[in-house]
């Protein structure tokens, strides 16, 4: 007999779908089938079952081979590395639960580390913008129930958040949006004709890197002021048309992604998009929301913020928290040569940082805590495989709209494997001894 577990949370993207059904074997050790998830989510659940999975911590040898070690030895190495370092960087946190993040923060505090999450290469610039200008936003259910103007700016949910449009933004029939998709106008701004753009009522195929100019032009258009003939490759008539469409809705929302956070102007693109949203609230109701990537990058920011006061890129080296991306941010720390040890958990900087920020990792003491083999584990001195969070252990996570959802454990991890939290507790306790803390 098999068992079906309902209301399972998908630990892939910030959409954090919580309606997944998973079929497991009677003994709860095997995951057999996954329903309702997108193709990526299904793969995430099913891959946890891979037979060739690494289940023991391993130290990289000089000849490139790996030597299995125990979790105790791995925790010893990690604690000693952190205790010795003058400025360790503890990076990642976005693919683990808030419980583990909390223990991690204790470790960072004791070792006086720099701590950062994947917002560094994702929505960190959004956070900078929010700090500059604020953020009128809402939960995803508000979009489902009320929104009749949906703008996707520099994001491609058809690929990156596959169930976003069906669960929240375009297709669902909500309380005031009984006609579903028919109740909504969809505008997409993207330099490519993305699969999302193909569905739009209006697609502005913007010249890459000129989002700041186009958003400025929209603000000017709202006020009916003078505009140059073409802005960012878009004729002014089309800009005015889009502006009118935005103003004429009853409840609108701008979803934005890495198309704006990572292009020239970065935080300023978001800053002015928020200004656009604020402007629109003079005419109607408008919100804006970042399409957060990792399923718990938002949670990491929340935990950092209530414990240290800042959402990412935090420097604890002086014994108190400091924050200033550009100085305390991972990429800058690595490229500028500011740190002397690297601790990675729940993320893959090896694959997702520019190579010039990866090279220093290979040349310093380094630990990578990750269930997968990754480019990061491939260049780290120690790789600690752990249970899959959200599959083999539960724990609290925050959706892209900051809504907390407690993930579920659906199967047992392979015998003897620890969770992130369990391993971190081992490291913390050792570190306390090394540092002579209580």
């Amino acid at each position, binding site marked *: 007999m098999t068992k079906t577990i*309902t*209301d399972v*949370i998908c630990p892939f993207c910030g959409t954090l779908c*919580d*309606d997944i059904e998973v079929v497991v074997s009677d003994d709860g050790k095997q995951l057999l089938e996954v329903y309702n998830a997108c193709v990526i989510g299904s793969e995430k659940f099913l891959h946890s079952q891979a037979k060739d999975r690494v289940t023991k911590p391993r130290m990289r040898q000089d000849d490139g081979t790996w030597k299995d070690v125990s979790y105790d030895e791995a925790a010893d190495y990690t604690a000693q590395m952190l205790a010795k370092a003058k400025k360790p960087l503890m990076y990642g946190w976005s693919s683990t639960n*808030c419980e583990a993040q*909390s223990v991690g923060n204790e470790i960072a*505090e004791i070792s006086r580390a720099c701590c950062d999450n994947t917002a560094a290469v994702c929505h960190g610039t959004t*956070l900078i913008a*929010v*700090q*500059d*200008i*604020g*953020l*009128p*936003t*809402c*939960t*995803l*259910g*508000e979009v*489902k*129930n*009320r929104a009749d103007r949906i703008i996707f700016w520099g994001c491609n949910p058809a690929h990156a958040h596959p169930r976003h449009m069906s669960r*929240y933004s375009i297709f669902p029939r*909500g*309380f*005031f949006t009984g006609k579903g998709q028919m109740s909504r106008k969809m505008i997409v701004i993207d330099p490519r004709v993305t699969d999302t753009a193909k569905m739009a009522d209006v697609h502005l195929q913007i010249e890459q890197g000129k989002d700041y100019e186009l958003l400025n032009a929209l603000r000017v258009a709202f006020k009916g002021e003078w505009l140059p003939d073409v802005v960012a490759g878009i004729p002014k008539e089309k800009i005015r048309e889009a502006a009118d469409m935005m103003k004429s809705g*009853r*409840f609108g929302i701008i979803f934005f992604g890495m198309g704006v956070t990572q292009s020239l102007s970065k935080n300023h693109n978001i800053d002015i998009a928020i200004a656009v949203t*604020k402007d629109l*609230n003079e005419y109607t*109701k408008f*919100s804006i929301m970042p399409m957060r990537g990792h399923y718990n990058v938002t949670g990491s*920011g*929340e*935990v950092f*913020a*209530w*414990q*240290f*006061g*800042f*959402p990412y890129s935090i420097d*604890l080296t*002086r*014994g*108190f*928290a400091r*924050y200033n991306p550009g100085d305390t941010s991972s990429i800058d720390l690595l490229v500028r040569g500011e740190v002397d040890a690297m601790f990675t958990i729940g993320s893959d900087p090896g694959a997702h940082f520019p190579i010039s920020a990866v090279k220093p990792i290979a040349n310093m003491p380094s630990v990578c805590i990750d269930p997968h083999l990754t480019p990061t584990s491939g260049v780290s001195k120690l790789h600690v495989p752990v249970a899959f969070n959200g599959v083999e252990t539960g*724990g*609290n996570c*925050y959706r892209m709209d*900051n*809504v*907390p*959802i*407690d993930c579920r454990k659906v199967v047992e991890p392979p015998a003897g494997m620890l969770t992130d939290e369990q391993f971190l507790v081992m490291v913390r306790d050792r570190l306390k001894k090394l540092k002579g803390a*209580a």
Partner: protein
Amino acid sequence: MSEYIIKNGSVFDPVQGIKGDKKDIAIKDGKIADKVSSAAKVIDASGKTVMAGAVEIHAHIAGPKVNLGRIYRPEDKLFSCTPTKGMERMGGGASIPTTFKTGYEYAKMGYTTAMEAAMPPMFAKHVHEEIRDTPIIDEGAFPVFGNNWFVLEYLKNHEIENTAAYIAWLLRVTKGYAVKVVNPGGTEAWAWGLNCLSVNDPVPYFDITPAEIVKGLIEANEYLGLPHSVHIHPNNLGNPGCYETTLDTLRLAEGMKAKNKFGRESVMHLTHTQFHSYKGTNWGDFESGAKEITDYVNQNKNITIDTGNVTLDETTTMTADGPFEHHLTGLNHLKWANCDVELETCAGVVPYIYSPNISVCAIQWAIGLEIPLMMKDPMRCYITTDHPNAGPFTRYPRVIKWLMSKKARDTQINAFKHKDKVLSQTSIGSLDKELSLYELAQMTRAGPAKTLGLGHMCGGLKPGMDADVAVYNFNPDKPVANPDDIETAFSRCAHVFKSGVEVVKHGEIVGTGHKRTLWVNVKVNDNPQVMRDINEKFIKYYSMTQANYEALGHHFVPNPYALEVDATHV
């Protein structure tokens, strides 16, 4: 557990009517005791003031909007973060301190219980995660109900029993403490960019008025017999002339009587009264309505209030009154955050500088002090700053100084740039009253505890009550040489005990105590209709499933303390 005896202090305890007598306070097994053994540790409190641990009835200290404030105000922490120290974790933040700092700061000032004043139900897990990380103090959180779709739909037809069943369900799944109402109907209207500025403005689509929402919630609250009354932030906050809306709201409680087993006598708690006591028609002729409001409250014993004192600081405003925050950003042009929460509520956040050089801010400061000075029954008026809205809670010692010393008030008045305006638009200059320590204990201990339905547990020093005790370096037998000495004394306690554990000694944290999450567990008769309605709303309109909604388990509420209510009798 250790025994203690706090000897020879001047004790102020309204619960027992003790007004500064030299008395010994004994602590045993976490409770105040009649006596202790000779092994008890002796705390010499001679020349010091002894009170119960203070009770915060209204502050925004945990949850999504507080954390949004932290996230989006790095400048609130610039040069103010503090290192790990002894038992203390790192801390930071002036107007929105980190959770650790929040717990330490309250404890150092002698506070041992605090209520988070607005919990968006859908974010209960977040609120509880922060409460868990706020050391020492017992905390509860008030879920917001005044714009909740279930409530609007039930009360449109005056379905009190269904409203009550829903309240019981929501308190259980969110581990909530009381029924909070913020800008009733107005926050739902804000989802369309609108507002309800009077108690009779219709709520768009839902065909109900704020008055009907408030009355219905009071009825449901008393039907259930909850520990705390309905806790209300009325419509039209912060606008010149708003005192009339406030009076209209207060009148909704007329004829209502408290029904509960917790000793609570009020049916409505009006919060941050200062923001609701404005006369005038614009910011130019802005004046105090404190007299009108306190006159009404003085006459109506079923109402309690808290003050919402402006502390003249740079701070961060945050409220579920979304349209107000939008209005505020239009006035000061500072960064505006807002989050509408599906089916339930909303929150807005805007930084604000209460500058002593701006006449409106100075008048707000005066109104906040007039209210407690004009209230005849200190058991019905509690000191708050609506942290962080009117100022950070860390300024309580300064507020206490202003309330206890006319000289301190005059010094501040003379320092205002628009002193004449403050004197002409308020009566602060003619109020000679100086709060006594006994009245202070009523306003910060016995009073709020009673109104929260916690009067049997905390807020007093009667044997059998929780041993929450604060000892201040303040000698009531000596004249106050300088009003600033009051502020100094109330800033850092000589000793604080929380449930019998010494948590503060000479102003430093020495223990993290036995922190609890307070919540209210109400048993009601089975109500299949409400259960079906809940189920349907989750299937159709919520963006998460019902099974994932509840805040369950050790991670969220590691040390719960439930106040049990049986409402199955009706």
